[in-house]
């Protein structure tokens, strides 16, 4: 069922993305690009005392990539850098492995349907690739095709 992919929460976040704006005082920024579909994303993170205090994004993309960016920025706030990286790994596992769904993912579990759509995994991970690049302080735009 295609509805397993496009769950209500995903549709809601794709139509009304949260934290979808530039952030002037961000101290981490990164750009992500998916050359296969042309989706682009700019991610803004503010880290204070090793804690993500704010996160936002701008960009154009499909429902999956927009909802993923929206939900990611929501779930990052209050996380330490280490916790953010752990979340990234869990999210990646959710999409690409058959491991049981981790409850630490919170709302992000709505993306569990993506694992049945291999062609769409990159849509869901674009924001997260970009997050990794932002946390590592990389200046180069990150592409979904380089990992």
């Amino acid at each position, binding site marked *: *069922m*295609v*509805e397993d*992919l*496009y769950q209500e929460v995903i*549709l809601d976040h794709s*139509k009304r993305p949260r934290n979808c704006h530039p952030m002037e005082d961000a101290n981490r920024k990164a750009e992500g690009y998916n050359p*296969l*579909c*042309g*989706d*682009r994303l700019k991610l803004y993170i503010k880290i204070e005392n090793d804690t993500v205090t704010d996160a936002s994004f701008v960009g*154009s*993309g*499909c*429902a*999956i990539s*927009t909802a993923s960016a929206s939900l990611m920025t929501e779930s990052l706030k209050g996380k330490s850098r280490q916790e953010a990286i752990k979340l990234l790994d869990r999210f990646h596992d959710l999409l690409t492995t058959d491991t049981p769904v981790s409850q630490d993912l919170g709302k992000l579990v709505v993306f569990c349907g993506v694992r049945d*759509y291999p*062609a*769409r995994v990159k*849509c869901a991970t674009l924001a997260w690739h970009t997050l990794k690049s932002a946390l590592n302080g990389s200046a180069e735009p990150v592409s979904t095709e380089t990992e």
Partner: protein
Amino acid sequence: MSTLTSAVAPGFDVARIREDFPVLKQCIHGKPLVYLDNAATAQKPFAVIDAIRKFHEVDCANIHRGVHELSQRSTAAYEETRGKVKHFINARSKNELIFVRGTTEGINLVASSWGRKNIKAGDEIVISALEHHSNIVPWQMLCEEKGARLRVIPIDDRGDLILEEYEKLLGPRTRMVAVAHVSNALGTINPVRRVIEMAHQQGALALIDGAQAVPHLTVDVQALDADFYAFSGHKLFGPTGIGILYGKTRLLNAMPPYQGGGDMIRTVTFEKTTYNDLPYKFEAGTPNIAGGIGLGAALDYVTRIGLDKIAAHEHDLLLYATEALARIPGLRLIGTAREKAAVLSFVIEGIHPHDIGTVLDREGVAVRTGHHCAQPVMDWFHVPATTRASLAFYNTRQEIDALIAGLAKVKEIFS
């Protein structure tokens, strides 16, 4: 199934033709496959599948080398295709037809061999705004290497070339004009005869990217007076990895080899190598023999059906689909050229093409979503991507209906 019989092409029995394509008889996610991604690659009839199988089962040997029976059979079958291609595009001689991997390699061959020899700093190469990346990047690489300039014929809002602007781009520095016969992203059929004529008036050569044209139109390279014409086998119902570069004998003779190796030589010593005659000078190494034989079978198949009937049926489908799509609120067709092949590129307000493609796939409908290897076209229309339905002669009005029903489902989910 009487409605499957085309009203516009008498004697054209779509239901029967579909029987020739085994891949079409399957369900995708429980729904009958509706294959509308023919501009990416076309499906293969039994005739092609059987020819390739027969080669591997009965005739398999390397070509141009052995005196043994199998080598002679495989050489004859492979070379027979060259004769069929000569007939298919009306080349003067078989020697003007170079086997390549596909259109991309054909264009790269010309850019590398002819280009490196003839292009100097300050020269100009003209392409158009609706080219596939394969007819942009090889010229860009050449220009970068030589200090030459790439100039681009603009298109209008319909996706037609603006010939007045093209005329202004032409000048004494123009050396090559490289343009698609049919646009893969928009379906525009370019007035290539006129484009070539204008290039020739300035003393420039013209290369035509025929990848999207040969499956749908009758191509006559002599009538067009094309200097080079490249196309791929796999869009013509043949296998992947085989294509043709046509070039005028005079030009090909004056060009240095593209790759070195076996088959392209006459004599080799460590001091000096002399090269083989056309077309072998450009065919180094063991080629895609099975592919060449499969291409021959594909040409026979298409010729038997008749390109005039194919064009009539596809045009009927194009009109039917254009009307049906126009009735969908929020849908915008990208590419409405006056003369169009059966390609329908579109966007729907507020819904990304990838989401459209995924929902359609679950309905059994295969379309292409993305930039179609034509990012400058997407930029021109200010869209990141489109959904593209591209048709072939085995498609039916019922399949267009399935596309439309699938789009209704898309709107239901995302509205």
